[in-house]
């Protein structure tokens, strides 16, 4: 479980943010709320070699409030907050509560559903884990663009810069960084959607990510030699270490959304991630997620 103090603090921050956002919005701006409940399964939580990989399932719940102001020519500016909680079945140290704020500007280059669009967005999230070593901030800056080809086909591209900073990295040992959970990465992704019928949308996506990755495993010389930071990772067991490495990750997604009503849907997503890190430290992981999303 999340420690009481950090949970209460995050809850207080959430309430303050919600009150601030609700009261700060210009007249005519529109609030929308969405909530998500789901379960994830990750077969390689530590991004480790096959012999060290451990899997677990997690319940995930998320509530978001977004305010949008629509401008002329289909442009819009949106800002909001999201609270997300994850609770793992076996690895309690990974349980987390995140409070995120986001801002985005979207511009449509024409009139109608087939007009191309682009979007610039930023988000920052405060992350509170049961295992405090993972606590920190996640900042994301994203540029996206897309074009709907018809009622059935939709395409999108995304460029993302992501920085994760640990709020309280362990004290540095001489010549060795213990700040294994701070990461910087950039990625490019493409996504295609296909409406199989009126109530079902299939999507296929691929993303190429370059930058820091964290791999948790037992001591291996080959990993040690190429790691930029190392710290004991109590969340995933005893005598295992989180290594920060540089690598490339190919992420492939297949997802299906079943629309249950105009304002709710059931999502099923499968993700495969293949990482090639320096020193031929290569990892594979699969994730499956099932969730219900409701919009208000």
């Amino acid at each position: 479980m999340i420690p009481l103090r950090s949970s209460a603090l995050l809850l207080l921050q959430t309430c303050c943010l919600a009150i601030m956002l609700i009261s700060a919005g210009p007249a005519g701006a529109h609030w929308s709320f969405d909530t998500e409940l789901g379960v994830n399964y990750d077969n390689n939580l530590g991004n480790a070699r096959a012999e060290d990989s451990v899997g677990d399932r997690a319940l995930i719940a998320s509530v978001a409030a977004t305010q949008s102001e629509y401008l002329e020519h289909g442009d819009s500016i949106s800002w909001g907050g999201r609270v997300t909680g994850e609770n793992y079945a076996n690895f309690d140290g990974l349980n987390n509560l995140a409070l995120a704020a986001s801002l985005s500007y979207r511009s449509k280059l024409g009139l109608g559903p087939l007009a191309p669009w682009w979007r610039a967005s930023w988000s920052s999230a405060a992350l509170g884990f049961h295992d405090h070593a993972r606590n920190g901030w996640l900042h994301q800056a994203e540029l996206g663009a897309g074009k709907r080809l018809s009622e059935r086909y939709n395409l999108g591209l995304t460029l993302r810069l992501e920085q994760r900073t640990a709020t309280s990295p362990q004290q540095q040992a001489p010549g060795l960084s213990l700040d294994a959970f701070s990461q910087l990465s950039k990625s490019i992704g493409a996504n295609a959607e296909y409406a199989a019928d009126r109530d079902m949308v299939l999507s296929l996506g691929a993303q190429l990510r370059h930058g820091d990755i964290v791999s948790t495993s037992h001591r291996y010389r080959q990993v040690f030699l190429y790691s930029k930071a190392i710290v004991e990772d109590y969340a995933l067991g005893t005598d295992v270490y989180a290594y920060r490495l540089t690598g490339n990750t190919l992420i492939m997604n297949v997802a299906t959304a079943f629309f249950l009503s105009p304002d709710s849907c059931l999502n099923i997503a499968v993700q495969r991630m293949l990482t090639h890190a320096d020193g031929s430290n290569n990892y594979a992981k699969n994730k499956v997620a099932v969730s219900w999303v409701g919009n208000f």
Partner: protein
Amino acid sequence: MLAGLAVTASAGELLASVRDQKGRPVGDAVILAMPLDRKAFDLARPARHVVDQVNKEFVPYVRVVFAGTSVSFPNKDNIRHHVYSFSPAKKFELALYSGVSAPPVLFDKTGVVVLGCNIHDWMIGYIYVADTPFFGKTEKEGQAALENLPPGDYQVRLWHPDMEKDDQATVQRVTVTDKLGNIAWTVALKPSFRIPRPTGANNSGYR
């Protein structure tokens, strides 16, 4: 339903029934009765119609009007809409507005007008601008009653947004008397696709 018509002493009624290729009732089908004697048109009066925007959808999905009719587009949502049409029968744009601030739009050219909202791409609606004041639209049970029809001979045809064939291929000739008449169609419909609403899913978590 024959809005905008004066009732005559000896008017007829036509009950139309529409089913698809699988025998299911077809709602939102437009039934158009064209009198061979156009004097009946003298009975038509100018009318005003409304297409609402409710819960980010056009309501009704299909509206039939006689050419020369003005249509208002009140926005009943708590968010602004930007209604437009590219259709040759009527090109127009009502830029961002809320409430009833948008002026009515005159539909004076016959044909199908496809409506959209530039903010909410999934919103779609149709206005069928009819060349006759005698029309109706089926309910979800697939039936429509055309009332107050002046007796005489008519060419009756059908239109639906998902119909595979042109509406001229559906023409039937009917003689309307002061008794209830019936007319029925079985039409082939294409699968209907709509742009989905955004799901808001963010199930990746933060670990």
